[in-house]
């Protein structure tokens, strides 16, 4: 029995490790959205802040991309769902001998890399445009149109799979009965097949929108000079990161969580109704005893997830109410200023100034207390104005690595080399 227990413990550990791999990165990324540090990091933790969300909402490029993504998502939905349904119905009707070829062709977009789909769409429409001598602002070179077409190529296949799964449970006798009773073909389609397909249409539409919304590989080729949320995000992540991207991630993760919970609740209610109908049919007592209800609620996945969401939400509200970000930042700034001062003085007067003692004289003129109304950032830059530094440090200051703007200088002082290491040879430094 003990070896059984060891095995069980091992399995438990494995599942734990697996889900930490799954959720650890997302949780850490979400945390960085609330750290006031200007680079997405968990440590050092500076101050709890929501400023990155504000910054995110003012990001016009991102908002433009988001709008395009929504338009494209709607377009793909409108194109891929009917095509997918037609593809699935067609599969049930093509002759047995050509069915494998047909299936191979329509399933192939799923097995072809997205990059290839994007390129082939781009080239196809470009050549068509050349053939028709179309101008460059015609539909052949329109990024949004091409992206809708390119994405719909493979998303239609996803939708088709959803419809095939549903069609397998369809009883064709229903259709025949309707036709025998004098319904026209159009009526049969509208009154029998469509209602049967409705759940599948709904899930195919959701799937199509989500798949379109998060697509990058195909989009990056077909979008040409336009932009979508993912392409804007990708260029932001590559060429300069700030935590407003984490803020966006927090929003997306929360939306996903809420969607998952809502879906699970809806499914449970359906199951419960089905069970209630069954119980009614058997003439059994309708409501289970309270204890059973409680046990059901505790073991309920949607409940568990909602619990975690509620805890996270409450923590957030509590922090919003209690933490004074401005004051915290002010403290931090003060600490850094003192620390900086100490270092500079050690460089300036290595003999006279034994370590640890802060001098009073040179500190005063360079670091005036900020007026109350001034915003944090400006005040900060004022303190570390290059001019000030040079005056103080003299030749040593100039020998230090070149710091073109006050904003970048800030990073350089406290974290030498940090940014360059991170961003690598792609060359972009932080764009605040």
């Amino acid at each position, binding site marked *: 029995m003990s070896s059984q227990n060891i*095995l069980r413990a091992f*399995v438990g550990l*494995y*599942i734990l490790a697996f*889900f930490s791999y*799954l*959720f650890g*990165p*997302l949780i850490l*990324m979400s945390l960085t959205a609330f750290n006031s540090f200007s*680079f*997405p*990091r*968990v*440590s050092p933790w500076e101050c709890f802040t929501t400023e990155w969300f504000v910054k995110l909402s003012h990001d016009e490029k991102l908002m433009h991309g988001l709008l395009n993504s929504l338009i494209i998502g709607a377009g793909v939905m409108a194109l891929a769902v*009917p095509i997918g*349904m*037609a*593809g699935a*119905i*067609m599969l049930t*009707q093509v*002759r047995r001998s050509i069915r*494998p070829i047909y*299936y*191979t062709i329509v*399933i192939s977009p799923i097995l072809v*890399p*997205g*990059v*290839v789909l994007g*390129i*082939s769409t*781009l*080239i*196809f429409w470009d*050549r068509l445009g*050349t053939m028709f001598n179309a101008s460059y602002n015609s539909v052949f070179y329109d990024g949004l149109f091409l992206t809708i077409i390119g994405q719909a*190529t493979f998303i*239609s296949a996803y939708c088709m799979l959803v419809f095939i799964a549903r069609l397998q449970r369809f009883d064709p006798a229903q259709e025949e009965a309707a036709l025998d009773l004098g319904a026209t*073909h*159009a009526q*049969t*389609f509208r009154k029998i097949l469509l209602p049967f397909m409705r759940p599948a249409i709904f899930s195919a539409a959701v799937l199509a929108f*989500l798949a379109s919304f998060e697509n*990058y*590989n195909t989009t*990056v080729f077909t979008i040409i000079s336009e932009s979508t949320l993912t392409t804007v995000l990708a260029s932001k*992540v*590559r060429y300069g990161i700030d935590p407003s991207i984490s803020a*966006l*991630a927090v929003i*997306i993760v929360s939306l*996903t969580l809420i*969607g*998952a919970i809502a879906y699970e609740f809806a499914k449970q209610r359906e199951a419960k109704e089905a069970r209630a109908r069954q119980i009614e049919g058997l003439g059994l007592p309708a409501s289970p005893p309270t204890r059973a209800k409680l046990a059901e609620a505790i073991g309920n*996945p949607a409940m568990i997830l909602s619990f975690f969401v509620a805890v996270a939400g409450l923590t957030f509200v509590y922090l919003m109410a209690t933490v004074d970000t401005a004051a915290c930042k002010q403290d931090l700034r003060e600490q850094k200023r003192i620390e900086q001062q100490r270092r500079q003085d050690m460089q300036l007067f290595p003999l006279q100034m034994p370590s640890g003692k802060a001098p009073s004289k040179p500190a005063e003129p360079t670091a005036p207390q900020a007026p109350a109304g001034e915003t944090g950032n400006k005040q900060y830059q004022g303190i570390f104005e290059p001019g000030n530094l040079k005056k103080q440090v003299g030749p040593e200051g100039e020998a230090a690595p070149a710091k073109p703007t006050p904003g970048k200088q800030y990073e350089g002082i406290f974290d030498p080399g*940090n940014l360059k*290491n991170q961003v*690598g040879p792609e060359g972009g430094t932080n764009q605040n």
Partner: protein
Amino acid sequence: MNPVTGLRRFVDRNGLAISAYLLVAVTLWMLAMIILPQLFMLDFSFRYNLPPAKIGGPEDVWTISNYAFLVFGSSGNPDAYNWIDLSVFFRTILAAVFVTVFDVALCYPIAFYLAQVAKGGFGRLMVLCLIIPFWVNEILRAFAFRILFGATGVINTVGMSLGLLDQPIDFVGADIALYAGLGYAYILLMIFPIYNAIESLDHNQIEAARDLGAPWWRIHYRVVIPHAKPGIASGCTMVFMLSAGALAAPQILGGPSSLWFTQIIYQWFNTGGNWPRGSAYAMILLIACIAFVMLMMRVFKVGLGEIGR
């Protein structure tokens, strides 16, 4: 049965309006979106890189120079072969195989647990938890791994502050971040096919093997894995294709010295400005993916219908 009577029977069966809808939708999809674009790309990859004015002119003839470039490089190349691009290509394929193997090893136990062991609420919770990370944007997932593995990332700062590390480990340069991120991105596409396959296995078969004295590893080797073959093949195909064709993760997590093959294609289309050569490279990627699908079908002895599921 000739096509005309076939068409007539099709129209009889569906009515005129519905037939038109089905035919137009499927024809548009198959011709204008799947077959013709691929053929145009194939044709384009055999062309010279000409300015728009000269396209269709006397210079617009077929050539294999774009494919030759991948193998031999430009004419001024001192080496016999174009080692830069070739090594990127082979490294991409190898790395994608590695990511696939990693995902199979990682996901098989979880899929088995979900399908045969987990019961009721906990199983459903696990499924729900698997789906959530999958709907987070691909780029944000890569970004999360950058926060984790960067030079000032969580692992390095925590490791250094605990005294475990003397200096930051260059996870990005060593491509560890990339492999972890790619493996992460496609977990779901590996788990669900395997899960579907194992779920259809009658639990009594496992019980029977156990009663007959088979140790757990032999039960998996002789009973579960043979039954899960189509699922494993399907998962492997999807994961291989997606990692070999990934663009965002290598752009974000790739080390400075290592390129992914898709990045070279992207460069030909963007900064390189040589679309025919980019198409040729894309064709090579496509052929590699098709070859892998064929290999999987051969190794696991399954049909395409089972893989596409």
